[in-house]
């Protein structure tokens, strides 16, 4: 956990609303990006990030500082993403949502999202985004998902291989 997170985490659990505002400012963009690419729906991503922070507020009394703040937020947002996608059966094409999601999209990126990222399963896309977009290590992903590091390695390899096979078509 970085020192800013550690300090704000302690202050927030101690009852500081200013710390909550700083946590929100620091983490919302990363959460928004992750949720948007996982769900492929900008409006849902926005709701999920709001809900994540709402849960942070409602659970203030039961939070422990032992948990990493960033991890807590990501696990919460990730679970909400999976609930939304599975329950609402979102089938929106990522590429159709691109103008709303992305600031600037070059043709290469657009093609990659449309033809590769969009064709991965929810679990595969989630894993790839956690590793490549959010920069989590294999060990950190294993902790987040509650699986072994070897399982993460195998799943990551399969997702990467699938991306290559899709890209060749």
């Amino acid at each position, binding site marked *: 956990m970085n020192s800013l997170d550690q300090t704000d985490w302690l202050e927030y659990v101690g009852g500081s609303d200013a710390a909550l505002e700083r946590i929100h400012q620091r983490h*919302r963009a990363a959460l928004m990006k992750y949720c948007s690419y996982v769900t492929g729906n900008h409006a849902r991503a926005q709701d999920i990030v709001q809900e994540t922070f709402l849960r942070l*507020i*409602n659970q203030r009394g039961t939070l422990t500082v032992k948990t990493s703040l960033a991890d807590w937020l990501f696990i919460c947002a990730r679970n909400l993403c999976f609930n939304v996608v599975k329950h609402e059966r979102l089938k929106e094409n990522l590429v159709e949502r691109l103008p709303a999601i992305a600031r600037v999209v070059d043709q290469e990126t657009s093609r990659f999202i449309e033809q590769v990222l969009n064709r991965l399963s929810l679990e595969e896309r989630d894993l790839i985004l956690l590793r490549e977009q959010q920069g989590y290590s294999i060990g950190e992903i294993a902790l987040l998902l509650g699986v072994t590091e070897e399982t993460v390695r195998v799943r990551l*390899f399969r997702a990467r291989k699938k991306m*290559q096979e899709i890209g060749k078509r």
Partner: protein
Amino acid sequence: MNTKDCEYFERLLSSRLDEELPNAQKQELDNHLADCRACREFDANLIEQRRILRSLPDVIVPEGWQSTPIKPKWWRSRLSVPFPVAAAIALVAIGGWLMALRAPGETSVGVPDTPIVVRSVEIVRVPAVQATRVDADEMKKDNKEEVL
């Protein structure tokens, strides 16, 4: 090089991308890459995919949403009742309401439809009952007579 061998080296390439490849296997992988064009392509594609994924554009966050300080809505922060409990409470409430709505003639107590009007009230004085001590011998005598 056959496909089965390449699958093994593709796994090593994936591990190398995550900086988790043991030193012992690095030389083995380099030797294979020198001979296998397909695995060199696989490696190049892995790196290219990573480059694109890491440069995926940020999402647009609405201005108003960005600066909104998040405060819980009072009903959400105070009433966090699970759905089954809420459903049970609702059922009990509806049941009570339906009981109250039952027609008066159907009530089990049999309350008459017409109201009872009390026209006058008469106060009756009741004489006080005097407590008397009864002798125990007299009681026995009376009992004997009843038996005979």
